[in-house]
């Protein structure tokens, strides 16, 4: 599974209580950005990549690539599964295909994770500028 410090995983996105609180406080608060620009990982997977809690990682799928902070999952064990809270960061990498029902594939997207010590986690407005050229 590990090839040059790159791990093949299944990406899930979803709700966390921190994201829930963050979105109610306001989307331009730092609480919100910090709550959703993260990626929860199984501790064993983090060991495989040799990264620590809070390290920057690059998550890539067939649809895009984004840098977020890796966080040790409290909901482990779930080896091979990573979890990014709903938000603009997750949206870069989810699968837009709706299979004719209107619902994109937000959960269960094949992805890779690799350490990205040199790449920054973009702030919200930088991310919007990068993705949409607006904001």
């Amino acid at each position: 599974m590990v090839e040059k410090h790159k791990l093949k995983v299944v990406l899930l996105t979803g709700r966390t209580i921190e994201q829930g609180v963050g979105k109610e406080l306001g989307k331009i608060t730092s609480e919100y950005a910090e709550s959703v620009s993260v990626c929860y990982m199984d501790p064993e997977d983090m060991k495989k990549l040799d990264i620590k809690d809070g390290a920057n990682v690059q998550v890539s799928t067939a649809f895009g690539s984004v840098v977020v902070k890796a966080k040790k999952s409290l909901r482990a064990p779930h080896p091979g599964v990573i979890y990014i809270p709903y938000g603009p960061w997750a949206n870069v990498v989810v699968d837009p295909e709706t299979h004719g029902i209107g619902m994109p594939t937000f959960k269960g997207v094949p992805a890779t994770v690799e350490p990205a010590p040199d790449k920054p986690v973009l702030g919200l407005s930088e991310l919007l500028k990068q993705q949409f050229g607006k904001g």
Partner: protein
Amino acid sequence: MPVVKAVSCPVCGSLCDDIELTIENGEVVKVKNGCAMCEAKFLSHRSEHRIRKPLIRKDGEFVETTLEEAIRRTAEILAEANYPVLYGWSNTSCEAISVGIELAEEVGGVIDNTAVVCHGPSLLSVQDMGIPSCTLGQIRHRADLIIYWGCDPWSAHPRHIERYTAFAEGRFEKSAWRGYMAKIRSLIGLKKIRSAAKRLVLKEPSEIEARLKPTFVPSIAREGRKLIVVDVRRTKTAEMADFFIQVEPGKDYELLQALRALVRDQELEVDHVAGVPVEYLEEVVDAMVSCDFGALFFGLGLTMGGAKLRNIDAALSLIRDLNMRTKFVIMPMRGHFNVTGANMVFTWQTGYPYAVDFSLGYPRYNPGETSVVDVLLRGESDAALVVASDPVSSFPRKAAEHLARNPLIYVGPHMDVTAQVADVVIPSAFVGIEAPGTAYRMDHVPIPLKKVVDPPEGVLPDEEILRRILSEVRKIKREKTKAEAA
């Protein structure tokens, strides 16, 4: 200090209506009975991130403008559009949604609500199967078996368990809270005994385990309400459960169909389904068919991946099957506080719960074709009005891109992500804090929302803003007809 009681919380689909707010100088200063999200929401109306003045993008930058100008611009964009999208609606009142539908009809647009990216697939399957369900009080009074599947109420609906299910006090079923506390205590005790045994007796660990086990009967055999959680991760809710089934990501459909076969007393020709041993499943099925009243709640874990809508098809079929044996109900855990209301108003006015296309002058519905994400992905729309929602933070990038590329109007209280890439931004009052209205709880019970404080000066409720846009659109259309006639 005035205290307002019985306030409904405009956050999640549980719509707790027992919140007590303390108001001081026209501001909410204290929130009682609410969860963390509730507190954050009620305190956020004073946030510095509020939008206070309408904004229009000029040469790529926002400039402040008057409400009249912002509404005029909005109306022009919508009246000129050949295929506009009107999206959002789940965080506002039914009264505002009603005006939104009239506006969509007037401009011949596609109107869609956030169900499309949460429980839209559930609605599609309900349209195939129907849904045996009930109000939450029925579960509180009667359910002796509660299943949460692909949802984590502890994080997303924090008071759901205490108000409506396992830890609620009902007429025929009592709260399982005490049993749960006893379990926690015994687990802590068990840990202590274990470490003490290790230190003092120095026996083989397996021997200690063997001695300890018999006193801790598998809790699924225990009397009273039982809680089963099915999820891909061991969530907080899963930790409270009597029985936790960790399903392989994307394999819920197989698990549900296997349960159905077992409920029908059929044998399976496999040992494991979705990573779960079939013997475990048999135990779970026993608990299901032997309960007096079971309730299955499901979340986005079932709708957003894998078999998507057909996960729900299987879940609904499972409940149909179970009703041949006992009483069983099922309910989606609706996210936004009024997404159910949006579905309701859409349905009574147009016949369909979401993804309604008015471009031919009458309601048409076919998610996949008329749903907003697909319309955006195919690049068909030429303008968008977003009300009470934040699609740029919830849609896949490619869909959000098309929104941002075309004229985009945002109506809402906060400088949301969508607002930041919009062309016209109209600030609105917080529904349920600064404006009254009606919202529907996840079980379709309508709950009134209160106005407890005034909105900032000059900021109107969504309903009023939409009315003004609608009348401006009609004015523009009249002007145009006149000009054409002349």
